């Protein structure tokens, strides 16, 4: 602890901080632009000027930037001194010289850090009367809008984009008062994290283009704390709506998970919730077409179908909440419930869960992953399957070189100095994947091979760490030397991190990764092991499932089923056409609970409109085993509601049916599944109040309450009540620091921008006031003997006539729902089949873009050829989950023709 004096009052502050962090953590309102808790200090904007005094006798002091001043023992500063005040106001006046007066048309207006800071500094009137410098704006793709005139040259954008996220195509140009932040020419911003510029930029240079389509001011949005359903990481988001449609997604700070950032799939992939293809009414198929049906009648008819002695089976979903999956299981009975994924995928996830539960290696969270100093990725294209993990790993790669800076006592926050020493160097970072991935640019060694060969490399590394393990038979020299250098680097590291996942559908890869981690653990290393899984609630659903879809198919083939209940699951997408038809044909009646029309809903008898994350409340479990609660943003003006609400009524006696609230369902869930006990603690129960007040979803400035729906209903009905959470749908409630899982927006007096989050943290950049939300369900057991997997696969030999086809992932397109959003749609690649040049030539294919035919499940597929020379011989890659390639089960073998 250090003692510092701020305006002559003594404070005890933690060591290793700078004065700006300290002042903000203590609650002082000090203006700043270029500093960001995740990007640290560079002292560029000169906005946090304070007076620094030598000692108590120094009455004059000198102006110093608080962000560059270490908070060491005895530091004396004044924020309030007139000279400091005038300095800050003068500085902002010069920053504002060229800033346009366009707040009324600016998307940032009302949540602008520049507005906040200008008021805070005391600069009120513009004295500058001359022409302002103007810039041309660029087209930056479907996600971001560019308005360079508003720039105040804080450099945050390039520091985030280039230094933090590893982007290449945003830079700063020109000099003096004519600085330009943008691309070298118009074009799409390539980086997967470009959307964060919306929040990183202190003013309106980079704004959300999807929000522009249906613009709403921050104060008019009704938001709910939610969890991203785009991949398995479970990043925390704030989803906001007005007039019944979702308007935008912002990062919800969670110091344990995503911190300040989100990936572009999560941020811009929400528009499917507003799609015209949404199912908004209960429907019944009458002679081939869907007709709306009264809810009550629908219940009664479905109930009648499921009567005594009827054979009913249910298929769950990895994108539906734990509660929905649980109620389906309750409704159909334990033995008739099947997890909505293929058996291959199900067993892989089961194995991952097994390792999470029984292994003795810690699975770090996304935030903890940033703290590791050597990384070994085993068979996972992280940038595309779990984008935010790639962002964490990029930070982990900086740790080793940073140590050099720490050795000469440069603190972490001094970003300029660290960058000066480290330059572009990165720490030990090894990748073994099927083809070239984006993280290869920071890797110290990459290996491309068949999943079995990746697993062999993993086993070889494990063997070199622990000599007692069986050695890999017939290892070639190249991978032997690579495995030695990987083992050496991992052993030299303090905290090695192993990353793997289910994306290659290979059990061997998962086992090899675990072996490396176990071997390192035995060497006394503080090792981390992260697995990614396919979908948002893959882990949660698998925890509730004994059997999967292939078992269901086997069963209906043996004996027809009367009723099939499908929960939020497009079978055609997940298990393919052949298997879907096999199961749908063998069931007399099909009832689906679904968000959007898709191929599966085309062949159902009853459809119930299920809510997406925007209209449902629930709990999902991420890849790390962290259970997190998401809340519904609004009650839509149609019949859409959480699937568990439909299922709950269906299982009750319809005459006396009473809608159960969320907490009752959770209680029932944990009573039947004691291992999920902790999901109850993920968020306060619905009867939680602060004083007597609920927690509002809208800020206190919310406008238009008496006119918003006046065109529909003049008599102003009572606002909807949320019985499932302690939150209200209006602005009524407690406006202060709310419980962290239930914070719907960040606002604090004088802090209207997203940076109001400072006030919600115990210490700026640290955990939230009552802890970061989410509860981990599994913790590693240190005392357990690691049981190695000794099944070493033999090396893959390409066959002459057949190719092995593996999935290649794309951040935009490989996830089924986000791919339906307009902005994301523009970024989805053309479907292709990738081969290396050798292999293409051998098959008589030369030109990239040429047509290639192949057969899968007796059906002919035709795609254009893409040459990817990093792919090993004998392997072809197909983009996973695109429209043209949906429903393919990987891996499979096929012959290809030109």
């Amino acid at each position: 602890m250090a003692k510092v004096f701020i305006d002559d009052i003594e404070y005890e502050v933690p060591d290793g901080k700078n004065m700006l962090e300290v002042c903000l953590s203590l609650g002082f309102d000090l203006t700043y632009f270029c500093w960001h808790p995740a990007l640290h200090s560079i002292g560029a904007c000169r906005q946090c000027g304070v007076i620094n005094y030598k000692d108590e006798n120094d009455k004059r002091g000198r102006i110093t930037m608080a962000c560059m001043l270490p908070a060491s023992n005895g530091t004396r500063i004044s924020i309030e001194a007139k000279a400091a005040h005038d300095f800050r106001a003068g500085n902002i006046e010069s920053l504002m010289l060229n800033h346009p007066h366009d707040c009324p048309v600016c998307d940032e207006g009302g949540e602008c850090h520049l507005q906040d800071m200008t008021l805070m500094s005391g600069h009120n009137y513009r004295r500058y009367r001359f022409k302002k410098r103007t810039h041309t704006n660029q087209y930056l793709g479907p996600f971001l809008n560019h308005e360079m005139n508003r720039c105040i040259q804080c450099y945050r954008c390039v520091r985030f984009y280039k230094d933090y996220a590893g982007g290449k195509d945003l830079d700063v140009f020109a000099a003096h008062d004519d600085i330009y932040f943008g691309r070298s020419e118009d074009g799409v911003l390539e980086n997967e994290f470009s959307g964060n510029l919306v929040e990183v930029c202190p003013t309106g240079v980079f704004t959300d283009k999807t929000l522009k389509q249906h613009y709403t001011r921050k104060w008019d949005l009704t938001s709910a704390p939610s969890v991203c359903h785009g991949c398995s990481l479970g990043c925390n988001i704030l989803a906001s709506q007005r007039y019944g449609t979702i308007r935008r997604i912002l990062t919800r700070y969670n110091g344990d998970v995503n911190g300040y950032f989100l990936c572009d799939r999560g941020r811009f992939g929400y528009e499917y919730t507003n799609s015209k293809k949404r199912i908004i009414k209960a429907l019944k198929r009458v002679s081939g077409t869907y007709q709306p049906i009264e809810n009550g009648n629908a219940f009664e008819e479905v109930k009648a179908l499921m009567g005594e002695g009827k054979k009913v089976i249910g298929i769950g979903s990895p994108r539906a909440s734990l509660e929905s999956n649980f109620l389906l299981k309750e409704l159909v009975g334990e033995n008739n419930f099947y997890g909505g994924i293929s058996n291959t995928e199900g067993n892989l996830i089961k194995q991952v869960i097994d390792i999470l539960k029984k292994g003795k290696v810690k699975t770090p969270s996304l935030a903890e992953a940033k703290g590791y100093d050597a990384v070994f990725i085993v068979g996972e294209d992280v940038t595309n399957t779990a984008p935010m993990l790639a962002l964490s790993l990029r930070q982990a790669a900086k740790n080793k070189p940073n140590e050099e800076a720490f050795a000469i006592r440069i603190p972490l926050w001094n970003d300029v100095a660290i960058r000066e020493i480290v330059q572009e160097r990165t720490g030990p970072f090894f990748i073994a994947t099927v083809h070239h991935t984006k993280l290869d640019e920071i890797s110290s060694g990459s290996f491309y091979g068949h999943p079995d060969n990746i697993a062999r490399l993993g086993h070889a590394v494990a063997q070199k760490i622990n000599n007692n393990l069986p050695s890999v038979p017939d290892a070639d020299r190249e991978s032997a030397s690579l495995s030695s250098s990987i083992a050496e680097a991992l052993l030299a590291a303090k905290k090695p991190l192993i990353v793997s996942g289910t994306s290659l559908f290979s059990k061997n890869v998962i086992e090899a990764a675990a072996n490396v981690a176990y071997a390192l653990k035995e060497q006394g290393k503080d090792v981390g092991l992260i697995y990614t899984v396919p979908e948002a609630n893959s882990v949660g659903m698998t925890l509730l499932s004994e059997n999967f879809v292939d078992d269901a198919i086997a069963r209906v083939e043996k004996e027809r089923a009367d009723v099939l209940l499908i929960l939020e699951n497009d079978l055609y997408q997940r298990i393919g056409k052949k298997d879907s038809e096999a199961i749908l044909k063998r069931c007399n009646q099909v009832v689906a609970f679904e968000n959007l029309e898709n191929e599966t809903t085309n062949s159902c008898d009853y459809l119930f409109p299920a809510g997406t994350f925007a209209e449902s409340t629930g709990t999902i479990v991420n890849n790390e085993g962290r259970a997190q609660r998401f809340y519904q943003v609004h009650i839509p003006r149609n019949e859409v509601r959480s699937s568990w609400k439909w299922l709950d009524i269906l299982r009750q006696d319809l005459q006396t049916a009473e809608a159960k609230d969320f907490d009752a369902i959770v209680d029932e869930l944990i009573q039947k599944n004691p291992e999920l006990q902790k999901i109850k603690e993920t968020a306060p129960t619905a009867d939680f109040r602060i004083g007597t007040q609920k927690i509002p979803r809208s800020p206190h400035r919310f406008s238009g309450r008496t006119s918003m729906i006046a065109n529909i209903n003049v008599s102003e009905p009572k606002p909807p009540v949320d019985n499932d959470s302690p939150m209200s749908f209006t602005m009524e409630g407690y406006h202060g620091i709310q419980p962290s899982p239930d914070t719907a927006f960040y606002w604090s007096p004088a802090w209207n921008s997203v940076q109001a989050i400072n006030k919600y943290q115990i210490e700026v950049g640290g955990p939230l006031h009552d802890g970061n939300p989410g509860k981990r369900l599994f913790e590693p057991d240190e005392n357990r003997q690691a049981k190695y997997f000794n099944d070493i696969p033999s090396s893959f030999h390409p066959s002459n006539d057949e190719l092995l086809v593996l999935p290649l992932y794309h951040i935009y397109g490989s996830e089924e729902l986000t791919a339906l959003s307009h902005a994301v749609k523009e970024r989805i690649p053309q479907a292709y089949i990738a081969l290396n040049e050798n292999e293409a030539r051998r098959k008589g294919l030369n030109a990239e873009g040429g047509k290639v035919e192949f057969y899968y499940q007796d059906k002919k597929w035709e795609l254009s050829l893409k040459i990817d020379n990093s792919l090993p011989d004998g392997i072809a890659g197909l983009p996973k989950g695109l429209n043209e390639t949906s429903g393919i089960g990987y891996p499979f073998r096929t012959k290809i023709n030109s």
Partner: protein
Amino acid sequence: MQLTQRAKHVDRHPMTWIERLYFWNILKGMLITLRHLFKRKATINFPEQKRSFSSVFRGLHVLNRDEEGRERCTACGLCAVACPAEAITMEAAERLPGEEQLYREEKYAAKYEINMLRCIFCGLCEEACPKDAIYLSQTFAPSNYSRKGFIYKKDDMLIPNPLTEPETYKKALGERPAKMIGNQ
């Protein structure tokens, strides 16, 4: 004890029989009535005749245009947030290329509604507007057959285009001096 000098003594003596005839009092009343016959009339023949208002009178809202006939409103939302009755709601849209003669700035209100049943005519919206796009006119006393009719849409409030309909525009402007409504 007397607190002030202004207390009036009330005469409470029983009335005499002459007084009880009320002759004088009736005559006094009649005289007052008679006097009004020769005075100026207090009423006017509304709606044929209209009174002139103070220049700061606050009547129904008008959404203003600039001198080139372009809508001034950018749908920034400040009127809505200032409104104590929460009676204003709007939806913004981006101006497309080719619409420059319709909208003054790059955003405009695609939908703009005021619930006149809720409006208290306080004028805070006019005060909050950074674009001089809304002002309270001298039109008042709207009438309608249903409550729904009091939900004023953008079309109900938008001032006629000064270029194409100068006459109606002038009429809609009312008697306010032009500088008060931003058309300097």
